[in-house]
Every structure is written in structure tokens, then in C-alpha cells.
């Protein structure tokens, strides 16, 4: 259950959503380019240093990276849902979503599960180690399209990581939305990410509902797939509801079905996709899904733009 992006070495990296550049959605990102920010030299790396490592759950940690070059540090911006390519020389490169407050700080958080060569090497890195970074790439969650709506965030597993910057932004601009709800499914109670932050999110006005696939003795909450939470969610006005989802593809398929069944317009469903990505600029061809390149047109897509391709096996 990972929404990490993956490269050819079998490396799921981080997570990522964003808006797509595909025709219609291109117009939704303020600056027009697929990423909202043009990377002048697509293969140009910046040296970044690990400032802090936050262990999250088993095999997952958040790496807070800072640019060595202060000019780059000052200029760097990203939209919630975008990703960076993180490069560990000698091992390779992985696409990893940014996972913290977009307006935060001097360091940039990447929440990574150690599953392949590169991410396992990252897991053995120490504070002070350097690596390469290029980005940000892709499109971000188009939060402005949900203004005035009831906003429902649906996350599965590590899929919450690319949604977290959006959550910060939604909470910051809370009065522009009618309500905020997070539905978060995790495999077990031990693998709930950012658990310590959930009470604060609740306090600030977000309804947080959790479910786990397998409970333990201490768990008193929901058990079952996250779709069930959406099925049960009381909706104020489906026509004025927006859904942002990230998680395993099968989860998103069912969340999409559930949302449509509840009467939420397909144009208000957004999802973040995962495919093999190697260049992040739409030139290597690996991440194609139907007519789109997930790295530059996605990974966040409006549901109706991908619908014809979501239910075909092996696309």
C-alpha cells in the first residue's frame, strides 16, 4: 500500500499528486506551465543536505532537506502535490512528493518508505549527508476549484504524504471552504502516518476519520477499507463537494465509484496517480497512461480525464 512513485530499479520513492496540465486543467494552475514553475535546466541538480530525519512508522521517515545554495533556497517554491527527483549518486534517483507545509520553512520535507535500492540507501543516510535534488515537477492539487465546497480528503497509506501540504493549506484558508474532512485508511494502527498531528488538525476544524485494515486490541475505531468511510459520510450537498484522493490505484478506483454514487460531480474528484518515472519532464516515456504523461500532466488528475483509462487492465 504505497503511493510512492517508482523508477525502473523498482524504487517507489515518495508520493505525489498535483494538477494535470492536460488541456483543461492546464488553465487551472496559476502560472500556466505544467508544474506552475518552469525548471530551466531539467537535468540540473541542486546539492541538498539532510537537516533532520523524522522517523515516522516502520520503514518510513521524513527527510528535511535544505539547499546548500542560499539563492536557490530563497527562490524555491512548490505547490501542494508536486514532487522532486531525489538523487543519491551511485544508487539512482527517485521521485518523491513534498510532504510538509508549502509555506513552511527553510527545509523541504520528503516522506519516504524504504523499499528499493535508492530509498534504502536514503534510509541509512545521516543528518549532514548530501544528495541531489531537481524539481519541483508536476502539478499541484487545485484547491481553489473547491472554494465554497465541502472538501473531503481521502488518503490510503503513504498516500497521505502528498496530501499533507494540501491539508496545511486548507487549514490555513479554512474560511474559504464550507467544511474539511479527512478520511484516512491505514493498514494497521501502527502504520498511521502523522498520527501526532491529527488531533491538531481536528482542533483546527478538520473532521478526521480513521480506519485500519487490521485492528489490534487497543483499536476502537473503524476497521475496513477507506471507501467505507466515504460511503457512510454524511454529505451536506454532493453538488458542492470536492474530493482529493491519493492512495493505491485500486483504492482510488473504488473511492471514485463511491463518490460518483453519492452524487459528487466527476469534475470535482481529483486523484494522484503513480507510474514509473525516470525523467520527470515527459521525455522518457515511462509514465504514460493513455494520452498523458503522469510526471508532467499529473500526477494529480481530474477523475473524468482519466476515467476511460482507469478501468482497463495493464494500460
Amino acid at each position: 500500500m504505497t503511493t510512492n512513485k517508482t523508477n525502473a530499479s523498482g524504487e517507489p520513492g515518495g508520493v505525489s499528486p498535483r494538477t494535470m496540465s492536460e488541456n483543461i486543467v492546464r488553465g487551472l494552475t496559476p502560472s500556466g506551465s505544467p508544474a506552475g514553475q518552469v525548471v530551466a535546466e531539467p537535468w540540473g541538480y541542486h546539492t541538498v543536505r539532510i537537516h533532520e530525519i523524522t522517523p515516522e512508522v516502520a520503514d518510513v521517515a521524513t527527510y528535511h532537506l535544505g539547499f546548500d545554495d542560499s539563492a536557490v533556497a530563497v527562490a524555491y517554491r512548490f505547490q501542494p502535490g508536486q514532487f522532486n527527483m531525489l538523487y543519491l549518486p551511485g544508487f539512482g534517483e527517485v521521485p518523491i512528493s513534498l510532504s510538509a507545509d508549502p509555506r513552511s520553512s527553510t527545509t523541504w520535507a520528503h516522506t519516504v518508505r524504504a523499499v528499493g535500492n535508492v530509498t534504502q540507501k536514503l534510509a541509512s543516510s545521516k543528518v549532514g549527508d548530501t544528495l541531489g535534488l531537481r524539481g519541483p515537477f508536476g502539478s499541484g492539487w487545485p484547491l481553489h476549484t473547491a472554494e465554497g465546497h465541502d472538501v473531503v480528503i481521502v488518503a490510503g497509506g503513504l498516500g497521505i504524504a502528498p496530501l499533507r501540504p494540501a491539508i496545511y493549506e486548507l487549514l490555513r484558508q479554512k474560511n474559504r471552504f464550507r467544511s474539511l474532512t479527512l478520511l484516512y485508511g491505514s493498514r494497521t494502527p501502527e502504520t498511521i502516518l502523522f498520527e501526532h498531528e491529527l488531533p491538531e488538525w481536528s482542533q483546527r476544524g478538520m473532521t478526521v476519520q480513521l480506519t485500519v485494515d487490521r485492528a489490534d486490541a487497543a483499536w476502537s475505531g473503524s476497521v475496513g477499507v477507506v471507501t467505507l468511510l466515504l460511503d457512510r459520510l454524511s454529505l451536506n450537498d454532493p453538488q458542492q463537494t470536492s474530493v482529493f484522493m491519493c492512495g493505491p490505484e485500486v483504492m482510488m478506483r473504488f473511492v471514485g465509484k463511491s463518490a460518483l454514487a453519492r452524487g459528487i460531480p466527476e469534475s470535482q474528484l481529483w486523484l494522484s496517480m503513480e507510474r514509473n518515472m525516470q525523467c520527470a519532464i515527459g521525455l522518457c516515456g515511462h509514465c504514460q497512461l493513455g494520452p498523458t504523461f503522469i510526471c508532467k500532466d499529473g500526477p494529480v488528475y481530474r477523475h473524468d480525464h482519466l476515467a476511460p483509462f482507469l478501468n482497463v487492465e495493464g494500460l
Partner: protein
Amino acid sequence: MPMNSTSSVFLARSDLQLLIDRLAEQGFEVIGPTISQAAIVYDRIHSVSELPQGWTDRQAPGEYRLERREDDQLFGYVVGPHSWKRYLFPPLTTLTTADLTTNGWQMRAADDNPPKYAFLGVRACELAAIRVQDKVFLEGAYVDPTYQRRRQNAFIVAVNCTQAASTCFCTSMETGPRCRSGFDLALTELPDGFEVEVGTPAGEALLLQLPTTPIAEQQLTDAEQRRQQAVDQITRKMDTEGIRDLLLTQLNHPRWEEVGQRCLSCTNCTMVCPTCFCSSVEEVADLEGQHSERERRWDSCFNLDFSYVSGGPVRRDIRSRYRQWLTHKLASWIDQFGSSGCVGCGRCITWCPVGIDITEEVAALREVGHDNK
């Protein structure tokens, strides 16, 4: 810029060497057709004597043979396994280097100083293919610097086909056989020389340095007849009407399964295709862990690990990989780049070991009556 016949001139066959010499003097590395391993391939040339004089190619699905011609034409063949893409988009490129310093890892762009290429013998379908790759590498949100450095200096001498292979279908794709744009100079071979058309000021400047003569009416007629011969010899067809919607709504057509049974997933079609641009980026490190490079090499959507994600490959069976290739080439390419990815050169048909014919597959996919929901 369409050229009318009055603007063309005649270059004697004995003066073709001067064309190569002038290009070399101007610092171009001249690449042209030569014979290697029983095929016509594009390689560095210095002399007319290296051209495949008196040779032609016989092509059919899964079949390519060089044969002797009855005459001594220099460009009396169609296309071989190579395309110019191997020079503009090299099969292997070092993108970046990384060095471990006292200040941590420092990355920089790899040195890349490609020669100025002059291509001699570019066919109409290949001009179209270069145009397609221009759209991919130069005209999107991101420019590929490797391609750009090679492409911006390339000098193109096109050659009009005067015959066609059985695998050609450029007329269906509206890319040939006549060279209409995208060249500096275009030649049509005649028994004793060439009709030469100018495509650009650079071409014109070069032509001024060659001992050309006005072209005779008879020679113009002869050249036109020869070009028409190529048109007349093309028998293969692809119906491209509504092909984008057709293919993207036939994703569960039983033909995919059928062709998946025949396809070996060998990647030949993607390697010989002049527009296929997929690549993989790999890490090449030294043994001491002090220096490492990012290398890009041609990849193919027919490779199993091409679509690898954390749970395994997305396209596990050959059926889905063939479907990806064909729907990308002929349908989703249109969404992505505004044109088909197919130029009708027929290479994928010729070089397929089992002779799968893209035009036959499209025809089969057009057959209605299947429930694809």
C-alpha cells in the same frame, strides 16, 4: 517552402563529391548511407565511393535483403534499419556527473560537444520523423538539451525516393514520398546527376559553391517520372480516418490478445522506428563511490520492466505492451504532440522477426462487432 521546378538546378554525378567536400570544409561531419552487415546503414562518410552504388533493398514483413541493381544508382534503395535519430537522439548519452567533494556531492551537466552533422540521403518519411521528434524534444514544456545541441546545427540533404518498398505506406501518412520541407537541399537522382532543389538560405549558400548548371526540361520531366514511380509502387495503406478515437475506444478489442500471441516483445520495432523516443536513465558509478554519472539509453515499451512500479510491472503481458506501443504511436501521440507518431516508413514491418504489420493490425482493429465494454 514549396519549390517550383524552375528553382531547381542540375548537379552532375561527378560533382557530388564536391558537395561532401564543401560540407566537410565547413566543419560538418557528413553522415550518409553505407553498407554494413548486409544492410544500408547511416555512418560517417568522406567519399561518394562509400555510398551503396548499384545496390537496392528488397523488403517485406520480416524480410530485408540487399540486391544488385541493374544500374549504378547511388540512392537506389529505400530505408534500412537505421534512422537519423541515432545521431540527433543518441542511443547512449551521459546526462550528468556527480563528484563527492569535501563539500558533499556536487553535480553538473556532462560535457557534450557533438559534431555539426550533415545528413546526406534523408528521405521524405525521415524528414517527417525529424519533425515529429522536434515536437517531442524541442517544442514541449521542456527542451531536451542533448537533442537541441545536435539538431540546431544539422544540415540536411534530402533525397527523393524514386522507388518504394513493399512495406512503405508514407502516402497514407501524408509524409512522402516527395520531400516538401524540412531540408536544406533536396536531390532527385537521374542517370548522370541530380536535380537539386533549395530548401533554405543555408542550402542555397552551399549550392552556390558547387558547379551546378541550369536544368533541362527533359531532365525535369525525367525526375518527375522517377518520383512518380515511387508513388505508383506504394501498395500498402493505412486508413487513418478517426484513428485516434478508434484506437482509444478499442482498448479491450480481442485483436490485442491475438497480436500479443504473435509478438515476441523483442523491441525491434521501437529501435528501428524513427520517432520512438523512450529512454531509461541509469546510474553508472565508479567502484570507489566518489564519482557517478547519469546515463540515458534508448528503452522500449516492450521491455517488461519499462512499466515497473512498486507492485511490479503495470504491463505484464505482451498484449498490453503491444497495445501501448500501437495506441501511443497512432493515437495518444496526437493528444501529446499534435500529430501521428507514425510516418509510414515501414521499418517496424520489415524488422519485425515475425512480420507483424502495423497496417494489418489497424485494419483488424477497425473490424466492428466486438463488445469492448
